[in-house]
């Protein structure tokens, strides 16, 4: 007699709920040391239709935000993550080395991103402290960013001029230190250097974060996909 096919065990309600939420495991709760960055509040208030109804001034009447688009950042996407930089490790330059400012290695944990998600924006945000940031006069520095695995394989793929360290310094990674069509890695390790152009002071990296926008094609129409 045919052996009755074993019915797959029905997923426990909690597991199916987490899957529906797009979460790997049940959230522990708010981490003690984590505040909500203003940009995330702004994006939320802009996108939440009920919030927008309560405060129509933020959203023009009749305009409903496109479901798979982040208006404020001008890219396709239905998930925005603010990822704190971990393991900010400064490596001071050797005394004999030509450059005298430290370099930093940063680690971003992206393990919560699903493999199916397509990145549409990866914006690095750096806050500097110390002498360079306190200087009243603007200086000029050059920021260079590379993925740790690419260091030494030629000039840093992302180099940009920085006029002041008093405000946050932002750098777009996609298309420079992160190939457009690359999928999201489980973790992102970056090496940063900030070189003063003249004999100005070095900067001291105080905080780093990554604003990552992704689009889940299983939930969004393929036409909304990020431009290659």
């Amino acid at each position, binding site marked *: 007699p045919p052996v009755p096919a074993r019915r797959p065990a029905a997923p426990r309600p909690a597991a199916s709920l987490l899957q529906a939420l797009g979460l790997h495991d049940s*959230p522990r709760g708010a981490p003690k040391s984590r505040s909500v960055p203003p940009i995330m509040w702004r994006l939320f208030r802009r996108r939440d*239709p009920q919030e927008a109804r309560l405060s129509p001034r933020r959203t023009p009447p009749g305009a409903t935000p496109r479901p798979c688009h982040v208006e404020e950042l001008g890219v396709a996407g239905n998930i925005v993550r603010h990822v704190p930089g971990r393991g900010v490790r400064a490596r001071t330059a050797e005394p004999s080395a030509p450059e005298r400012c430290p370099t930093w290695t940063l680690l971003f944990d992206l393990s919560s991103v699903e493999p199916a998600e397509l990145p549409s924006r990866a914006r690095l945000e750096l806050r500097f402290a110390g002498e360079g940031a306190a200087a009243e006069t603007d200086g000029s520095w050059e920021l260079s960013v590379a993925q740790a695995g690419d260091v030494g394989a030629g000039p840093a793929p992302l180099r940009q001029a920085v006029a002041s360290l008093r405000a946050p310094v932002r750098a777009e990674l996609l298309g420079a230190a992160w190939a457009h069509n690359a999928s999201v890695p489980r973790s992102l390790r970056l090496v940063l250097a900030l070189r003063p152009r003249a004999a100005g002071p070095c900067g001291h990296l105080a905080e780093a974060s990554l604003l990552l926008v992704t689009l889940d094609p299983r939930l969004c129409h393929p036409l909304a996909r990020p431009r290659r």
Partner: protein
Amino acid sequence: EAQPSVGGSHGGSCRARRLYVSFREVGWHHWVIAPRGFLANYCQGQCSLPATLPGPGGPPALNHAVLRALMHSAAPGPAGLPCCVPARLSPISVLFFDNSDNVVLRHYEDMVVDECGCR
């Protein structure tokens, strides 16, 4: 909190009823930053003949639901009346902490019932 339905067990004709979902009540308030809850609403009501017909001045619209309501009013049978279901839904966005201490803004489609209809 749900708005109590009026008029008998099915509460009058098919329409959207108020239903507020509080994340505290479902135990999510520890990790959901905002909103604290939202108006999800729900559909309830009779889909007998008048409810399935378009309003006064509306276009003549014979459709499957009207046909079923007609048949049911002529000779109630096992097929019963059409169902009162969501006809238009809208999304919400949820701001929350994930287990990697990231702050996440995620968009969830079809979370709010705006309109109901007989189908």
